[in-house]
């Protein structure tokens, strides 16, 4: 090449490119003088007239079935000015599909080439037009020999102009998948864009899609998880970003993804059989809907299939962790000293045995064994996290008020060891609430969630069925699916406002104390077969009607309602007795 070619200089223009600090999008509009405005108005009117005429002509032709090149010409006039007119793109698709059958392959190839050129010109008018990108997808998808290399170049060009154009990112993913481009190459491409400007959600996101697909990953890797060397490299990269600009969210979100855990494998967490209630209860690893079209369960009693009706504890036909069914009494009252209950869900199976003389039996995976509330950590990985924690603490020293940093520290502490770091975690929550007052409610909920996780772990370590969560400032109840076997639950003196429907999953619950909260609704206390005592003193229950669901708990005998607003109502005791005739004692 001769050295005298285009030196690659550029003309200077006033349009700004990314400034040193990124602020909101937003463009200045140029104000015009009245005269110019009037001239523009006249011009616009003329354009509008032409636009309308062309639109009408197109609709007419479409109605008459004249799907020929003239429609292409007319729609290109419209779309050239307004590429977001989706109907016009549909028209073009109809015409092209029609012409494909009419023309020779050569003629059609010419049409396609023209179409690609036209699409590019539309994209230059509006690089963020849904319709245009979609049409290009459609067209490329139909071509017998699409030129994917050119499409990748097109993407690179548009991302060069605006590295945050997510339409183009979408299209690039489509092209890369079709071409196909090896994930490593695409990863290198995201590298180059992040190097230019790391405030790029699209680019980080694409990484999170590509990394698990890298071919170098061994098959032994749990699905969705990264090997440690890659994880380490990514953590360093993202750490560079948040040390450079700790207020940039994109990097923190990516960091959170890196620290996150994959969806757990499908499993039956718990299988519980109760002789008295003649009922079998199952807890799954994720909420499901049991129905022929969705998920199928197969129950075997003493190795023989038993058809049963499945329902949720609260009776609503929504995705639920817990499903239950009534057992015919003869299924476990036979002669044999024991009965086995085996459940199949897809290729997952769980079995529990009910021995003679026992009222109930269960088989449960322990939350502690499964490490449900933390990352699956190898030794190396926890070293990585430990050093992540160190750098975040370092960053926090420099930026004491950075909410992202504080939140990440909390997440890292949890990932490392939720129980050991419980006190530290609570301390960081305090700091974070001060630093980010706009999100106190969210943080309170998050804190409640973490605390509940810790107490569930502690309960399991202690191997008891009693859970005391009183005076923990809980604002929300989480992980109730883990409490299937709990018999005594104390939620007194927290900040709860309701007992949510999920509470109905606590099928073994006998005593529930919720004194000193701000409870207004108890809709979750429903269909609890063993509930005997419910204490709701010092709450915000306004009206006896709020307690209507309690009627569905057959064994409820003691209900304490002292110091609730409804106690002021004169008719309340009477109404309550009428509504809940089975309850022996109602204290108001």
């Amino acid at each position, binding site marked *: 090449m*001769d050295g*005298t070619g285009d030196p690659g200089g550029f003309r*200077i223009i006033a349009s700004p490119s990314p*400034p040193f600090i990124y602020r909101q999008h937003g463009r200045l509009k140029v104000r015009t003088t009245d005269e*110019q405005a009037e001239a523009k108005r006249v011009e616009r009117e003329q354009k509008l007239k032409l636009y309308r005429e062309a639109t009408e002509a197109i609709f007419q032709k479409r109605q008459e079935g004249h799907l020929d090149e003239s429609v292409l010409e007319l729609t290109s006039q419209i779309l050239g000015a307004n590429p977001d007119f989706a109907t016009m793109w549909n028209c073009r698709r109809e015409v092209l599909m029609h012409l494909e059958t009419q023309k020779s392959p050569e003629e059609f190839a010419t049409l396609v080439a023209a179409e690609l050129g036209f699409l590019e010109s539309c994209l230059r008018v509006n690089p963020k037009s849904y319709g245009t990108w979609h049409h290009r997808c459609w067209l490329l998808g139909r071509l017998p020999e699409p030129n994917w290399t050119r499409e990748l170049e097109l993407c690179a060009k548009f991302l060069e102009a605006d590295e945050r154009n997510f339409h183009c990112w979408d299209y690039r993913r489509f092209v890369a998948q079709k071409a196909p481009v090896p994930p490593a190459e695409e990863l290198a491409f995201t590298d180059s864009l992040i190097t230019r400007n790391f405030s790029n959600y699209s680019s980080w996101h694409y990484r999170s899609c590509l990394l698990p697909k890298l071919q170098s990953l061994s098959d032994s890797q749990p699905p969705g998880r990264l090997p440690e060397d890659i994880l380490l490299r990514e953590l360093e990269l993202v750490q560079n970003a948040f040390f450079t600009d700790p207020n940039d969210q994109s990097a923190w979100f990516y960091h959170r993804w890196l620290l996150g855990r994959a969806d757990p494998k499908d499993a039956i967490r718990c299988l519980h059989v109760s002789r008295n209630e003649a009922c079998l209860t199952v807890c799954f690893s994720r909420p499901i809907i049991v129905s022929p079209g969705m998920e199928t369960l197969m129950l075997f009693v003493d190795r023989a299939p038993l058809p049963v009706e499945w329902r949720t504890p609260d009776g609503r036909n929504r995705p639920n962790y817990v499903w239950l069914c009534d057992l015919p009494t003869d299924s476990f009252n036979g002669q044999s000293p024991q009965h086995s209950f085996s459940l199949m869900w897809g290729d997952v199976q769980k079995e529990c045995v009910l021995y003679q003389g026992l009222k109930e039996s269960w088989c449960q995976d322990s939350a502690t064994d499964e490490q449900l509330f933390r990352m699956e950590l190898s030794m190396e990985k926890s070293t990585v996290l430990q050093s992540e924690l160190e750098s975040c603490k370092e*960053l926090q020293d*420099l930026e004491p008020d950075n909410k992202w940093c504080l939140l990440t520290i909390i997440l890292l502490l949890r990932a490392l060891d939720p129980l050991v770091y419980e006190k530290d975690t609570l301390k960081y929550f305090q700091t974070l609430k001060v630093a980010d007052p706009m999100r106190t409610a969210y943080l309170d909920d998050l804190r409640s969630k973490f605390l509940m996780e810790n107490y569930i772990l502690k309960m399991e370590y202690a191997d008891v069925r009693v859970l005391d969560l009183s005076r923990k400032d809980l604002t929300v109840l989480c992980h109730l699916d883990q409490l299937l076997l709990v018999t005594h639950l104390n939620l007194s003196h927290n900040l709860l406002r309701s007992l949510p429907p999920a509470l109905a999953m606590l099928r073994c619950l006998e005593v529930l104390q919720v004194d000193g909260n701000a409870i207004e609704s108890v809709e979750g206390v429903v269909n609890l077969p063993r509930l005997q005592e419910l204490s709701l003193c010092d709450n915000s229950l306004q009206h006896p009607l709020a307690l209507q669901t309690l009627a569905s708990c057959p064994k409820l005998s003691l209900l304490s309602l002292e110091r609730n607003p409804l106690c002021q109502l004169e008719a309340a005791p009477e109404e309550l007795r009428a509504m809940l005739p089975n309850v022996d004692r109602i204290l108001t």
Partner: protein
Amino acid sequence: MADKVPSEFDVVVIGTGLPESIVAAACSRSGQSVLHVDSRSYYGGNWASFSFSGLLSWIKEYQEESDGDEWAAWQELLLEAEEGVALRKKDQTIQHVEVIRYASQDSDEHVEEVGAVQKNPAPVTSASSNDPPDSTGTACSDTSELTAPLNEPETSQEVPDVDVTLGNESHGGDTDCTESPLEQEKAENVPVGEAVVDVPKKNRITYSQIVKEGRRFNIDLTSKLLYSRGLLIDLLIKSSVSRYAEFKNVTRILGYREGTVLQVPCSRADVFNSKQLTMVEKRMLMKFLTFCLDYEQQPEDYKAYEECPFSEYLKTQKLTPSLQHFVLHSIAMTSEGCTGTLDGLRETQNFLRCLGRYGNTPFLFPLYGQGELPQCFCRMCAVFGGTYCLSHAVQCLVVDKESGKCKAIIDHFGQRISAKYFIVEDSYLTEKTCSDVAYRQMSRAVLITDRSVLKAESDQQISILTVPPVEPGSAAVRVIELCSSTMTCMKGTYLVHLTCPSSKKTAREDLESVVQKLFTPYAEAELENEEVEKPNLLWALYFNMRDSSGINRDSYNDLPSNVYVCSGPDCFLGNKNAVQQAETLFRHILPNEEFCPPPPNPEDIVFDGDGMQPEVPAPKPEAAEDVTSQGDAEEHSEE
């Protein structure tokens, strides 16, 4: 050739440096008739850029003894009620010119620049007529080059074409005039990095090659950059003069610390990608830079240090010593001890505000050299009807005794040209006028080297490096290294400009120590192996240039009130002074007019009722024809 210059104008501008050219453009744009003259045969004065042979002629001119400084005959042309203020015949702003040739000359002793007609032709007498192109045999084949008027302002679009034609022919046609055509092909076509590995001896660039490829050089007398949010960029955009030029972003900010050249991370992306900074350093640097961006909002952070030097303030900012060094020397570009905290913060802020507008550094460099810029404004002036005469000297200003105002000039033909306002570049004024003026000097060096001071993946880098002073109190040296894609030097070479305010007698004394720190003379390097870290020096030029900036008008003797003085280039990196000066002068002359307003948008042109005449001040075609340059200029403005 210019004997048909009209004898009456609104404004006469003498000197084609940047500030004069801006004033000329502004006046012409506002409807004034402008005569713009320069006694030199090229545009730009001390702002000019030269091809290699053009520069050699320029050097020769300053090394020769002057043939008398005064004009002889003008007094006879004055009328009774008039007196004259003489103007200088020969420029005195350049001193201590020293040339050192390091690269070997090759066996062929007599080598000529290919094409011979230079881009910025040196005085016609010395270049074209003394040494007609001989050895290459290509000069006459390119007719477009020969028919083009000598003095036209070059268009940037045009030059590459010419270059390509000539370059191609030189490969084919002149193979027998240098020692080994094959070698040369190689040296030119193989990227430097590879060539070092494969054929270490063959990529040596010889002096003959430099001379032969001399047209590829555009060597600036004044080395500056444009701040991407600076006054000059704003003006170029606002006035649409920018359409006449193309720019490249400076690619690297370099620093010099403890004997090594390092890249300074200054943008957000740089900091993110930097491998030399620790995480905490990244944070501290970003934190400090972010603060500087709007430091005025947090006065409590620096109030206590307002009286301290900036370097002391930096020590309190939790920055590591190397970061302090980078901020002080390479970002604020100030020196230890002598800059106050407020100035330092302001400079840092200015630097940061310019970042990211056109790229990852705050600076732009005009392709084909800084000398393009005055010419762009001259073109603008010509488009709106200005008249241009190069090689047109002025003997004196004619002053009306009674009013004390200047009424005309007398040119070297003795022709009297009258005007209302006169703008004169400082170097045209005689010692008599300037006897009370205390000028400063700046020291300049121009080097041609064979590789960059800091190796990088791409060899096409444009870098600015500040070398801090060795002794406290003396000035830092600014080094700007240009690669061949800036169209200022031949492939395989780098053009390096050094600038500092003079403190010793000659430029060489001021700058040689820095040159030695960064470069190795070519001959020495030849003895050692190829692993030498430092780039080789092929050729060096040192000179002192007068810095006539910041001079109070009252310091000049006997200046009529309607004569305004423009200063030559100053020592600063940016072009702020030139633009401010031009705007101030313009406001004196035309207080009620807008300074260089945008040219009317063709769409916004409103026609009169009868629809005949656009309201745009169209350039007058008849004015365009009688003088050399502008017909051509007008043509290009339409692109």
